[in-house]
């Protein structure tokens, strides 16, 4: 591969492109042609694509291992249970949770936030108590707390952001008072890509004796997460944004807190004993996993964790950083294109507007070029309101994206601009 004729930089580029091609070969869907053009899938913030090893794991489970878990004594039930719990152990290690019982399977990030709203918020908050959220939240970290507000008469405090899309930490500090009972903030903004200084924000909250929930849906596929180092009290994320199936997600919670919390749903598997007089709840994590879970999806999430570990989270972060830097440079050079979200610390998300063109028209026309971007308010309308825009187009990158795909995006944007002049 190396040749004396290549400069070091060129050589690095060659190695990288070879690795990237091998990596891309793991994702069959990336070979699709859309409208006769090679697919440039730049909507990973909404959902990422699945690599063959995860699909193979799902097939193996369905063809050789499937039964219900934690139930029967027969071979298949034991095999399925071992695979399901094995996946939990992988996830525990992946986020460096202290114990596997701190890792609760949910349907996704939204479900995880709702679990905490119910089990912690409903159980412990009283009228007049306050929860701090931020301007950058996804609706899934706003609406559950508004439901609790309307039910309990609590108050929501919102951390504002500056024009770059960075949270104002000084203001955050001033939002605390004796009634503050929870901070619930996103790790990475889905609409802008801002990486919030959550470790610092958690330390500040703990200084006031307030626990912190971190919405990690947009962080986990891109950054190495260590929940013990962050010292967060809750951390939520979704499988389908990290190369696993839909319908599975994780709530990490500190055991001491989870122990005190109310179960979210009642049913099978979450109980120790049931009589018509009294039910005794099961231990963690099962207390929060009522009913038959999405077993295959959970095992798929374990396989996705294996895949991410194999590629290496540091390699992923480094490559995505290059993608973001390249895409940012390319879009900045286009007259009439405005990048929304210019935080110093950003994940691989690029939201933009084109002067005189509505983002939905941008999305439809880019689709003709095989370029998949998200257009709209990204379930983060308060972010759009902050920047005084109805919507943006958003390119969000994953480990398999290429500079060529960014070039395809840029060519598409030029075509949009030409059509609308």
């Amino acid at each position: 591969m190396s040749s004396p004729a290549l400069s070091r930089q060129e050589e690095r580029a060659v190695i990288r492109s070879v690795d990237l091609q091998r990596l891309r070969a793991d994702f069959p869907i990336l070979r699709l042609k859309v409208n006769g053009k090679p697919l440039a899938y730049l909507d990973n913030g909404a959902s990422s694509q699945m690599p063959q090893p995860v699909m193979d794991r799902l097939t193996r489970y369905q063809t050789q291992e499937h039964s219900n878990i934690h139930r029967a004594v027969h071979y298949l039930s034991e095999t399925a249970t071992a695979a399901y719990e094995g996946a939990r152990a992988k996830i525990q290690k992946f986020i460096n949770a202290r114990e596997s019982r701190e890792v609760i399977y949910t349907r996704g990030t939204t479900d995880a936030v709702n679990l905490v709203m119910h089990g912690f918020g409903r159980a412990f908050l009283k009228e007049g108590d306050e929860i701090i959220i931020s301007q950058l939240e996804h609706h899934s970290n706003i609406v559950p707390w508004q439901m609790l507000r309307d039910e309990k008469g609590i108050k929501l405090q919102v951390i504002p952001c500056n024009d770059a899309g960075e949270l104002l930490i000084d203001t955050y500090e001033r939002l605390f008072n004796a009634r503050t009972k929870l901070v619930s903030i996103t790790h990475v903004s889905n609409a802008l890509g801002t990486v919030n200084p959550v470790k610092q924000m958690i330390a500040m909250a703990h200084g006031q004796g307030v626990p912190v929930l971190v919405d990690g849906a947009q962080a986990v596929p891109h950054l190495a997460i260590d929940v013990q180092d962050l010292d967060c009290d809750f951390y939520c994320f979704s499988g389908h944004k990290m190369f696993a199936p839909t319908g599975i997600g994780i709530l990490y919670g500190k055991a001491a807190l989870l122990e005190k919390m109310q179960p979210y749903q009642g049913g099978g598997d979450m109980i120790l004993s049931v009589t018509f007089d009294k039910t005794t709840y099961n231990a963690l994590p099962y207390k929060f996993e009522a009913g038959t879970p999405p077993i295959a999806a959970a095992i798929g999430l374990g396989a996705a964790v294996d895949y991410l570990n194999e590629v290496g989270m540091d390699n992923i972060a480094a490559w995505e950083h290059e993608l973001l830097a390249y895409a940012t440079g390319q879009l900045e050079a286009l007259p009439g294109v405005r990048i929304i979200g210019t935080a110093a610390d950003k994940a691989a998300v690029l939201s933009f507007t084109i002067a005189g063109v509505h983002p939905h028209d941008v999305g439809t026309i880019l689709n003709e070029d095989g370029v998949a971007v998200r257009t709209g308010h990204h379930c983060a309308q308060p972010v759009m309101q902050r920047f005084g825009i109805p919507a943006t187009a958003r390119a969000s990158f994953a480990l398999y994206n290429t500079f060529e795909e960014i070039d395809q995006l840029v060519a598409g944007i030029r075509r949009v601009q030409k059509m609308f002049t």
Partner: protein
Amino acid sequence: MDSKQLYQELILDHNKKPRNWGVLGDASHRAEGLNPLCGDHIWVALKIRDGTIESIAFEGESCAICKASASMMTTNVKGKPVEQVEQLVQEFRDMATGKLDVAAQAHHLGRLAVFAGVKDLPSRVKCAILPWHTLHAAFHNQQSASTEGEADPMGSPITGRVTQ
């Protein structure tokens, strides 16, 4: 389909220079239209005299498809009896949802047939229809219209239709 078929000169022109854009001071009927999913948000105001649309105006924030649809709607319906326009609303809706084939079936849509291509883009159908829903709501003094749920003045949901 190729977006060039949808984003034709006529549509791009009406997007760039929307006709009857603005506020109508002496309106007798008005309604607000909102597509909650994509954020298209328009206002339609009318002056109806003796059952005929004497004047009409619209304004708002929307994509090109919605704005051009609204603009062409205003030029088309001005001077027409409400009854006739109600039929046009239905025909436009049927065209956009693929129930009316403008090439094969009789209709009164004229140049509005330029929007026929939207039926192949399920996510954009509602953009084209919103102005017409809003007009319908204004006729019936319904303050706000949407393409969704209870605020859908046509009382029947538009479901996306995927064509290969």
